[in-house]
């Protein structure tokens, strides 16, 4: 993208329309990779459990927030859960995963002690209720990304 400068009306002040474009890579790490690979290969959602605090973290992470312990106990959690809260987004932004309108929700999957932020689908905003039961819908083609889960839909 070529940068463009634009002079302001009536003043010797210019606006420089530019960008910062630095290619970046995010490494998920060993634990993060296992979580994502399990979504891709097995359509299973995995968490890690802290034996001291008896908490299961989903998405899986390697450290317990409270006791600072290293987590290496893997637990499979259900693909069904409870909707803790939700909101909708009408504005478009390049960083969003899909085109708006998007309904985001925090879902606590059965077996997990944390909520996972994701999108809700196959439902209208008016039909959503806190406490609703929802289920993960996986994509056909998966790439070891959190978006391998397409969205959560209400359980009938």
């Amino acid at each position: 993208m070529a940068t463009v400068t634009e002079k302001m009306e009536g003043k010797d002040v210019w606006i420089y329309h530019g960008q910062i474009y630095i290619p970046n890579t995010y490494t998920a790490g060993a634990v993060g990779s296992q979580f994502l690979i399990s979504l891709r290969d097995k359509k299973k959602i995995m968490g890690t459990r802290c034996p001291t605090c008896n908490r299961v973290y989903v998405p899986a992470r390697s450290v317990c927030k409270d006791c600072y312990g290293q987590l290496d106990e893997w637990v499979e959690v259900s693909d069904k859960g409870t909707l803790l809260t939700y909101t909708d987004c009408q504005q478009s932004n390049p960083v969003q995963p899909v085109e708006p309108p998007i309904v985001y929700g925090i879902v606590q999957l059965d077996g997990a002690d944390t909520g996972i932020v994701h999108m809700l689908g196959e439902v209208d905003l008016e039909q959503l209720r806190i406490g609703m039961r929802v289920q993960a819908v996986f994509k056909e083609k998966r790439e070891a990304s959190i978006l391998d889960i397409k969205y959560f839909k209400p359980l009938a």
Partner: protein
Amino acid sequence: MPNRLAIVGIGQTYHTSKRPDVNYAEMVREAVTAALADAQISIKDIEATFMANMETFEAIYLPDHEMAAEAGFYGKPGLKVGTGGTSGASAVAEGFYFVASGLFDVALVIGCEKQDCGDTTAAISAAATPMWGKGATTGAIGEFAKQALSYMKTSGAKEEHAAMVRLKADRNACRNPYAHLKLGLKNLEEVLKSPYLVWPLRLLDFCPQSCGACALVFASEKRAKKISKKPVWVADIETVHQEVFRAGVFGDPTGKETYAQNVACERLYKRNGITNPRKSIDMAEIYEPSNWEEMNLYEHFHFCGKNEGWKLIEKGITEIEGDFPVNPSGGVLATNPIGATPTIRVAEAALQVRGDAGEHQVTKDVKAAMATALGGPNWTVITLLKRSL
């Protein structure tokens, strides 16, 4: 009068070019757990945490937020510091001021960077204002290239001397299990064969891009003596920010400007009664982004006279077995996770004072050591460490 404080725990990761097995937060945790294990305390004993990092590289806004649990911030006071290349040492300064104030007894200082996440030169070039930027920015490298040319002209140093600096750094790095670049270089010809990046800097003249983290535990005098049998006292610290150079961004090839390095070390020496640094201090871990800069810095820190920096390297005075060892860890030339590098300088200097540097421990007894940092356009932080106050 500030309260006395010491370094009681030192930890670092094994620095390397890529760490796909950990995410950024997990990498930092490795260094933190190592430091806590070295001090034999737990995260609960830490009262404040300070973190340093240059954010653009990982493209994470608020990295301290990302790693709050892993780095030990969770629920504790502290600060995140970003001062370009000096970030790691600025975090050391923060830890120093907080504990010296008497308000905190035990603090954790972390420097970290995961450079496999982005393009380093692009990130540094992004620091240049775009409205004036395109023209002379070639990132840090171009600026150091111009400094190298300047140094060659004024001091009479040759490309062979720069190659000798790289050989020293490589030899030392091969004795340091944590260092990144261990090339096993055997002679000057190998260094002089390396290709030019930005003339006259060769690939081997410059520091690598590493992933790594380093953590230090600071404790006030009363706690330090209980926690550690070999506390390393942080005697003094000085920070000086550089003003704009008229010619050049990271350096002044005209030789007419005052460098922050000179101002900082002169203030530090004066406050501590040091008139002959080579006598009062036993070794130094300096921040040298290129081998030419190392020779230049010897002069700025008054380890030798003007235009004589290259003589120190030629005579072997700055080797591990030498009269005044500089960078026995391999220095920045061997390991450079930017946010962590200045913290590593302090950590390595502290290891030398403790006598715990293993194979790269210098031959002479180290009672006092100096660690320096350099960042952006020559911002400087200098730390003085002593075995006893």
